[in-house]
């Protein structure tokens, strides 16, 4: 199963994936009751992609609110990308935020700390 598509709910972001393009997107708020379960599929997809493909991987994020366990899961994901990057893989993150909510910019910036792979933060639109 190379396709991962999750519809947004009130407490979880929408997730789309494109194996051929090497693109994973996440959009919305994230405060699932069971973060482990929700992020498990996403982490598995990324792990498999990094293992089975040699092509670059890009994450396109439009995340707004996150609870603590979601923050931890995202940190785990960025650690995976960092490790792949250390092994010479081409990985990158593009984090878009609504210019009316500048707080997301600061938060994304906190996430970016310790990441040496390309990590862009840009206003949407």
């Amino acid at each position: 199963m190379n396709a991962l598509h999750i519809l947004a709910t009130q407490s979880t972001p929408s997730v789309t994936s494109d194996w051929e393009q090497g693109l994973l997107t996440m959009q919305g708020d994230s405060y699932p009751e069971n973060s482990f379960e929700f992020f498990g599929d996403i982490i598995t997809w990324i792990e498999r992609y990094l293992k089975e493909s040699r092509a670059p991987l890009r994450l396109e994020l439009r995340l707004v609110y996150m609870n603590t366990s979601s923050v931890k899961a995202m940190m785990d994901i960025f650690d995976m990308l960092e490790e792949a990057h250390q092994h010479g893989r081409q990985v990158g993150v593009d984090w878009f935020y609504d210019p009316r909510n500048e707080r997301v910019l600061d938060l994304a910036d906190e996430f970016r700390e310790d990441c040496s792979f390309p990590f862009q933060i840009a206003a949407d639109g």
Partner: protein
Amino acid sequence: MAEKPPLSPAEQALIERIEALLADPAHAANPLREPMAALFAASEAQRERLGRLVHISDGYHLISRDQSQTLAEQYDRHLRRLDKLARISDRYQNSLRELSEALKDAALRDPLTGLGNRRFLMEHIRDETGRANRKATPYSLAILDVDHFKHINDRFGHEAGDTALCQIAQAIQAALREYDLCGRWGGEEFLIMLPETPLEYALQVAERVRLSIQALNFAFMEQEGLRITASLGMALHHPGEAYPETLKRADNALLEAKSAGRNRIGTA
């Protein structure tokens, strides 16, 4: 192969002396030569074993030192991660808290005049009624209605009406005492709550409110030389009375003030 442990110069000299004696053909027939040679060989073997032991022991030390270093590094890394997690999480929490405060404020405030809205007033009337009943310190209540407000809207437009409401709201607030409360009850109606105030004092405050509204100048009707006035209905909360009852009496007093010619205060 493990090296033999290093020797002190005296030990080295002794070993060389023994080696020289054992090699000397002059002592070949000495009966002590054979046991001496055996003893020397045993000593050398012992020395080599000691060397190996030290080497192995050092190896274990090295491994355990490496392990504890790795553990310390892992610990530091986890600590840093935890730190980052807490930092990011706190930021999210802060923005939620600010959002909820903004929402609470929006939920209780009238966006036009900036005064408390009907929900805000209801909360306070409920609280104040509880306090008045417990402490037997009755409050007074005034409902204020702007006279002929519909005419102002019709004649000068809704924007002018809105401006007038804002100016009136400011005038009411300025005429009140610090601990009095006022809010927009709805439309052109305002509600004034005077805690722990007997009706006779409340009337003085209400009269000050009425006069300051009457004294207001409105840019949009300057040329007409018109004034805006307001009528007020007042009621004193009776001990044990439910607040809707007090409100109803104030409302009735307002109707009386209106029918008696407006720009005046009615009391229940």
